[in-house]
């Protein structure tokens, strides 16, 4: 049976009087590949942060049935690739990529085994020993993706992962990402403005007026599920709040 990775009902996130997310209900199951689209400021990033367990909702319930409690999600089970430069300035690119393995308790060998293939595959070998301030924005973004994948997480959240890349590099990066999730059967949620990129993902969620629509809204032949359907498919009522 396919594992339910994330289940949420009635999620709300407000900043003072301003709602970033209003009443979102959804389920993410193993192997899901979801494009999260919506205009800037619609609450996409906030939703990713809550799914990753980095932030808490103001209201509603979210649980990670197949992944465990919120404080055990990262770095092994859930990984986030941020849109802005997020490499740690005093660590080299290689050390940055290996950091989640280290945080998960991995030693030198584990770190080297996990980072080596990623560095090579993403063309980062030449800059592996450089500091973040010595590389370009595109290189930093690729390093950020490599860092997100290094622990082989079961849920990958990518926030505008190709925002700083040219189209060819972006396509190559996404190919690699899809290869990776196909191989590991990890779920992938990509927040993007890039219609082309969104079109490559079989599921599509849209944030509109801070409300999450998980139904298909274009003619793209993608598998779409409503929150109610996925909840029903998963079987049980949500019981665990973050």
């Amino acid at each position, binding site marked *: 049976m396919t594992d339910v990775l994330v289940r949420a009902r009635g999620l709300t996130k407000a900043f003072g009087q301003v709602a970033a997310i209003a009443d979102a209900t959804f389920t993410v199951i193993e192997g899901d590949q979801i494009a999260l689209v919506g205009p800037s400021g619609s609450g996409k*990033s*906030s939703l990713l*942060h809550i799914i*990753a367990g*980095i*932030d808490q909702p103001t209201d509603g319930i979210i649980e990670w049935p197949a992944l465990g409690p919120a404080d055990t*999600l*990262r*770095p*092994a089970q859930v990984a*986030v690739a*941020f*849109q*802005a430069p*997020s490499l*740690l*300035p*005093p*660590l*080299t690119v290689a*050390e940055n990529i290996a*950091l*989640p393995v*280290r*945080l*998960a*308790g*991995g*030693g*030198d060998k584990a770190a080297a085994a996990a980072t080596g293939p990623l560095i090579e595959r993403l063309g980062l070998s030449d800059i592996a020993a450089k*500091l973040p*301030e*010595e590389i370009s924005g595109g290189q930093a973004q690729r390093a950020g993706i490599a*860092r997100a994948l290094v622990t082989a997480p079961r849920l990958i959240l990518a*926030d505008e992962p190709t925002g700083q890349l040219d189209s060819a590099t972006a396509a190559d990066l996404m190919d690699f990402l899809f290869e990776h999730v196909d191989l590991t059967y990890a779920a992938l949620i990509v927040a993007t403005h890039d219609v082309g990129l969104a079109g490559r993902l079989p599921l599509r969620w849209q944030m509109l007026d801070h409300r999450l629509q998980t139904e298909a809204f274009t003619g793209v032949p993608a598998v779409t599920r409503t929150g109610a359907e996925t909840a029903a498919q998963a079987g049980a009522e949500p019981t665990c709040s973050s």
Partner: protein
Amino acid sequence: MFVLTWLTGLLRTRTLRLAGTVIGVTMTVALLGSLGAFFAASKAQMTRQAAAGIVVDWQVQVAPGADVGSVGRVIASAPGVLRSLPVSYASATGLSATAGGTTQTTGAGEVLGLPAGYSAAFPGEIRYLTGARTGVLLAQQTAANLHASPGTTIVIGRPGLPPVHVVVRGIVDLPAADSMFQAVGSPPGSSLQAPPDNVVLLPQALWQQSFGLLGAKPLAAVHSQYHVKLSSALAPDPATAYADVTGRAKNLEVKLAGAGLVGNNLAAQLDAARKDALYAQLLFLFLGIPGAVLAAALTAMIAASGGERRRREQALLRIRGATPRQIVRLAAAEALLVGILGAGLGLLGAALAGRLAFGVTRFGATTGQAIVWGLLAGLTGVVLAVVTELVPAARDARKISVRQAREVVGRGRSPLWARLYVDLWLLAAAGVVFWRSAQSGYQVVLAPEGVATISVSYSTFLAPLLLWIGAALLSWRLAHAALDRGREVLAKAFTPLAGGLAGVVTASMSRQRRLLSRGLLIMALTASFAVSTAIFNQTYAAQSRVDAQLTNGSDVTAATTAESGLPPRIFPAVKSIPGVQAVQPMMHRFAYVGNDLQDMFGINPRTIQSATAVSDAFFQGGNARSVLAALAARPDAVLVSDETVRDYQLAPGGLIRLRLQFAGDHAYHVVPFHYVGIVREFPTAPRDSFFVTNAAYIARMTGSPAYQVMLTKVSGSPPAIAAQVRHLLGPASGAVVQDIHSQLKITLSGLTTIDLSGLTRLELTFAFILAVAASSLILLLGLIERRRMFAITSALGAKTRQLGSFVWAEALFVTVGGVVLGIASGWGLSYVIVKILTGVFDPPPPHLFIPWVYLASLAAVTAGAIVWAGVGAVRSARKPAMDIIRDL
């Protein structure tokens, strides 16, 4: 308007960093201002003390043939003269007295004629020991020589006239005999004239009857003086007061037109005080300036810790179209805000600290000085803010590109000074300067007696200054090298703390080595300042106590001039007083070496140290233990002064024949001694020549076991125990009981006349605040500046313990490294400072005194501050900073 909006925003969102810089400026200004207050207070105190130590301010000697009355009228009308009384001097050819069937005769002596009311006008000039306070009074030593006591008739020999017979009514001591019998008008620097051995004081009328006729004779052995008391309203600065008093004396001499010469006792005392004032100035340099420099460095560090954020903000402003000029204007406004706030708060703090520590709120000895000093301190604060805030901002705005502004680590080369090894050059230079001052015998202040100008060898102070800066820079180099090349060692060291993350933590620290080395440098400077200040102050306090004990003899000392000594019952009685730890009797006799009469102290060398401190510095050519052992080893051993050794060409172990008074016939007889060592100083001993020998030998040879002095070591309150001892002795004993606390307040010599307690409190408090501020603020601000890094690490899944390993490893490296290196350089500094100031310590300290309690509490409070800052940083990093995450 834009500037105002910017400043409001800064106050709202960058409160801690802004407050940190304001605190740094406040500390600098407060420290400088407080030092001004210390300066003012100590100078005024020195002038007061100098004036208080003088009973007769001027002794105006009437020229032979001049009219005494008209001279008196001119003196009385001189400005500032409160009281002037004529005193007549006559030389006696000899004195004799018959007592107990034997006649004692002395050599030449001095006979003074004192007017009525003299002792009331000049209290302290005559100390009454026994008998009446009027009539014929005999000096204590003369009475001892003549075996005279109240009621004894003595014969005074007059030159060219038959002797006169007078009946002694009282025995007195003349504490100011040196100045009383000075040779008025002798050139400055000429050798001092020793006071006469034999002195008789007569009422003026009796003196006139006895010696008035002599005045008419050619080559008369009589002269007159006016003893003058001046108004105590003196300038607070001893140098100014000295110039004023000297000027007034010269003015009087001009008015007297050759009819009189002024012996200026007050000016002589102020002359010494102005030398002490220079020492106070040096102390200011030693103890104050480093504190202010440190506070300034801390301010620069705090300001620099916001550099990354400032560069990002500047980059943003430039992207939005701001010109470098506009950016500089914003930075100038920020610098002015910090400078003015800091200067205002600092001056307020200084006034408060001055009030609490020294009892003064002004920053100078005079109003002009106070204004200048206050302005300078305030201005320093503003300049400091400009240098630390505006200059880097202006430099960045003009030279740094938007891309460079993103750089937070940088792989830049080491600073120029490090590449040129300036630190090692400074240390080498410090060594050379120190060696040179050692060669010159640490002569720091040169003040030839009677010469108006005094000079200070300021270059000597380069040694500690260069050492301090060199050691601090060296600590930067060592930290930098450790982080650069010692990563593996550090990683191993941090493994218990960081576990598997040790390598990452060390790598992160290594890349930030410039930042961390800078933090360590400030910590080292702070620790060095705190340690050197505390050790110097402790050593100073200990030496002041030794000095006071040297003068007083012990915690509580009872002394009598009576030949029969203190009553023997007093020793066990005092020993049984609660709070008394030890009692030691000591003989105080007189012995002739040739024609020279010297004090002789009889002790038990095996037990003397139980009741009084006997320092190594008291002796020449050996330490206290070995010299006292040599004394104890031979019953007839004697310690003599260096001068006596030279005068009589004595060789160690050589025979020295002294004459001591025997109890049986009260006459002086030869007693053989063997010279075993040189004594420079001894408890209660005078500053000139004296002997120290075994009491048992004196008792056996003279037949008198009487002890004239009782030295008492106490664990309780010295004044309280002194009161009990006085009570036990009773008023009839004629003994004087002094305690060390009272002594500390009245007679301290050299630099120790400056009351350092206020400065000590101030310095130690500042050192405390600086240590706490440096450790916590640097750590906290550094970590706040890296909130983004912690937010990302936390978002990646770091647990609290893992985040903590980054924080604690950095904190440990900076503080432990800084403190260890700081303690080492602080100890070295204390050593150099104490050595350089050897001249002011009397006697020099045998070793440095470590204030363990203060240093332990400083370490505890600093550790507490670091833990507080670290826990705060970890706690705030535990939950990812969502304001930062949302920007990712």
